[in-house]
């Protein structure tokens, strides 16, 4: 489902991207340490899941490239829904599907099953926004993509904590 090329070698599409500050670790509050108080899943928690995903072509995280931002995460714990919009660094980025797939897989692995998740491109930031969104929303295609050893390898590399 992904246009392949460019991964691991060859010229970078966006060789000199703007780099953004990393947000620090989320400070632990007294409420979080209290056994009794339930902490609902909030936007920051989702953001913390995806912000450290590695970019497929830069030695940088999605957060540092501003591909994901906390404001673009919508979550409702009671309704079990998550929506994440991501912004490719350039409008013709061929990595867009791969990035979306990485985010989706990270969420699939990290969120309770009850969640319905929607990963899409920030409107108006990519040339083939519609096509990419459609692929990301298609469960069958996502599943098939993860059967592809090469793709799975790249996705795992993006999700690996120690590159």
């Amino acid at each position: 489902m992904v246009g392949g090329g460019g991964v691991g070698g060859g010229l970078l599409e966006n060789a000199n991207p703007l780099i953004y500050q990393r947000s620090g670790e989320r400070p632990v509050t007294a409420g979080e340490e209290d056994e009794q108080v339930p902490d609902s899943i909030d936007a920051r928690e989702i953001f913390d899941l995806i912000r450290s995903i590695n970019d497929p072509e830069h030695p940088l995280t999605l957060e540092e490239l501003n591909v994901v931002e906390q404001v673009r995460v919508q979550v409702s714990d009671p309704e079990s829904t998550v929506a994440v919009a991501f912004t490719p660094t350039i409008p013709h980025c061929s990595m867009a599907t791969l990035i979306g797939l990485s985010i989706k897989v990270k969420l699939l692995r990290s969120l309770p099953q009850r969640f319905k998740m929607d990963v899409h491109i920030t409107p108006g930031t990519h040339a083939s926004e519609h096509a990419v969104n459609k692929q990301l929303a298609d469960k069958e295609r996502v599943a098939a993509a993860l059967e592809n050893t090469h793709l799975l390898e790249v996705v795992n590399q993006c999700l690996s904590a120690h590159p």
Partner: protein
Amino acid sequence: MAAVATLETAAPTGALWGLVHDFVMGQQEGPADQVAADVKSGSYTVLQVVEALGSSLENPEPRTRARGIQLLSQVLLQCHSLLLDKEVVHLILFYENRLKDHHLVIPSVLQGLRALSLCVALPPGLAVSVLKAIFQEVHVQSLPQVDRHTVYSIITNFMQTREEELKGLGADFTFGFIQVMDGEKDPRNLLVAFRIVHDLISRDYSLGPFVEELFEVTSCYFPIDFTPPPNDPYGIQREDLILSLRAVLASTPRFAEAPAYPRMCERNACCAGYGQKELKDFLPSLWSSIRREVFQTASERVEAEGLAALHSLTTCLSRSVLRADAEDLLDSFLSNILQDCRHHLCEPDMKLVWPSAKLLQATAGASARACDHITSNVLPLLLEQFHKHSQSNQRRTILEMILGFLKLQQKWSCEDKDQRPLSGFKDQLCSLVFMALTDPSTQLQLVGIRTLTVLGAQPDLLSSGDLELAVGHLYRLSFLEEDSQSCRVAALEASGILATLYPAAFSSHLVPRLAEELRTGESDLTKGDGPVKCSRHLRCMQALSAVSTHPSIVKETLPLLLQHLWQVNKGNMVAQSSEVITVCQSLQQVAEKCQQDPESCWYFHQTAIPCLLALAVQASMPEKEPSVLRKVLLEDEVLAAMVSVIGTATTHLSPELAAQSVTRIVPLFLDGNVSFLPENSFPSRFQPFQDGPSGQRRLVALLMAFVCSLPRNVEIPQLNQLMRELMELSCCHSCPFSSTAAAKCFAGLLNKHPAGQQLDEFLQLAVDKVEAGLGSGPYRSQAFTLLLWVTKALVLRYHPLSSCLTARLMGLLSDPELGPAAADGFSLLMSDCTDVLTRAGHAEVRIMFRQRFFTDNVPALVQGFHAAPQDVKPNYLKGLSHVLNRLPKPVLLPELPTLLSLLLEALSCPDCIVQLSTLSCLQPLLLEAPQVMSLHIDTLVTKFLNLSSSPSMAVRIAALQCMHALTRLPTPVLLPYKPQVIRALAKPLDDKKRLVRKEAVSARGEWFLLGSPGS
């Protein structure tokens, strides 16, 4: 030899045969030149020489073969220009083949190849073939220097004439050369090798994936510390080597892409050892490469190294001694840097401001001259920019940069008063800082506060008017609301720092305002006004303690705080224990700040302690009509707060002054002598050790705070009586607070008492008392507490009796009544106390007491566990857990495998503390000893997964961390469990606690990666 044999034959000449024989068998050197001269003159052909050599080239004796080839090579060296294409082909084939020969032969073979490498008639493809053969067959670095030099010469010759062909080899050529050069030590050879590296790069040979290796083998010579021997016949100078290596390192933008680049920068930092002369030529290229790195890099490491290199470059330039007529390189270098950076500071989009500022600051941090030059150029620019930008976050960025430059000023203390570069900007800087302090953005305020502190630290910069304004701002900021907590804390900290520098300004402008605030607060509290006032009140006290950093200020703030406590005690206010605790915390902070200055320390002790004791004694007096308010002072928490004030105010006293104090305080408790207390007309006597009101007994905690903090050599009056009273009280069943305080006080004194007859007597008394108490009766638990504290006192000082008492304690683990308490007692034995038996309070605490306790007692605990009946086993596990928990992990790790079976059993123990401690012991074991742990994979997976749904959040977290650590075990062991684990870990992903979910996410993520491509 077959190859050569196919050469055209010619008639052998008798003379030639003779010469060859003399050279090969006769070991004479002369014939070689003769043969060469004859070949040159056309008397024989090369082929004839080969034929004459004939048998010696095939001789089974390697020495003879070597000699034969040597002759041929020497002839070729002189006659290579005469060779024909065809001859060259055959000779090369012959020589390549001989590279496989005996090592004695190799030097001559290389000579021959060197001769052939000079051949103009070399057909295409042969250069590559020769080099390949050398790379493959010869281990160059094990050859003597001359022969290594020959190899470099061959490479150099080919690079000069066959560049295109060599490039056809691609990165293999680079790799081969790296192998040749790796480990080269001789300066003569290095000179040639550096030249080759330089050419590889400058002529754009393919480095392929070997950029870093190439960089490694060259940069490892940096900096060059070669000193030629006094009679060096080769005339190689240190400078020659430096220059050729510099040529390599400085001309290589491609090295900058190597991950190793930072290391070169690091070594560049050694250039502090080089003088101006050597640096001059490289300055522009070094600067441009550093600048490029800092501007473009994504890696913090590369950036930091680049900045460090710039810093040391500038230092070097600043230090070098100039000849009278030479230009000062520093000035031109600084101008260069300013020119390249300043415009970035002024660009409206502020894209490259940070890298530019960092470069400028790294430069300015190198020397006083650099700092002055840069600061005087940059500050006006930044001041102007601050006003041009109106958004708070832009202003913050600019102020942060200004702050960076101001901080650098502190590094260079100017001796010369007239040359303070900042004085010209002072007014502008002050108004800018005050603007920041009043900005709505907290971030900008924070930077403003830090800048103010740095400005204040500049000697004689701020005028008294500036200070008054500054203090006003700090006063305002000290009362900020909860949501600007960080700002308030920063303001308090700044007040503390500035107060040490400008005590007068704070005494006259801040303390009176705080005093006023406190007074109005008191009257408000009397009216019982709401929590708003209360919090303002609290901040006021925090501000008072924050500025108590100078002795003269303490003399004003301490009375204010104590006065406030009196007000509380008089019952004039609606006071809660929290109010008193807050005052005590403020007092505590003041006491900490006084510790360093002996005079303030004594002042605080002398003023605060009698006052606190008087208040407490007053509160403990029996009353006709009991008042709720006064009893506040006797509450556990309040007394604990007072204990820490008294302790802090005592530990740093000099022994003489402490002795003075002890002669008043001990009689107060033993004899009820209240004469030194202020306002001491109490309604009845103070007799805490008699059967007086129970409140009085509680004050023994205050006595404990004092006597247990005294220096060890201070003699305590009436010690014998005091110890007996304390022991009696510790086993008296009044209230646990006072009996525990008495036991702690007794233990604290025991710990410091010198060994000898008196100590043995005290111990005997204590042991008798404990045994009598533990037997049976109403005060078993008090006797147990005494035992525990006495044991701790002795364990800490390695007293011989400690093992006996520990054994007694261990025996109590199977006691149906005291068992659980005894198990928890091990936690107390192993942990650090805050009030007694502390190092700060001069207790005798041996550094390794935990390790020693572990070694002495763990075997007995394990044995006890196995022998114990089922119902008390958890007590042993818990005791063991406490011991393991407190031990430094590196000490514990080697012991753990022997405890493994016990630990695995402990995983099934229902007690949370045992579970937690067991998990925390297993987690490092999983990381350190995966092979041993693999044997238990089945148990581990099952138990960890069970514990990941424990009711205790800490246990769930620890269990999931262990699940994560499991992934370090060998993958084949884990794979059978992968589907099961991934399914099971889906559940904690939905845990109600975020901290648990976080661990579940990382554990599950790692399990997904197991055995999966790309992991």
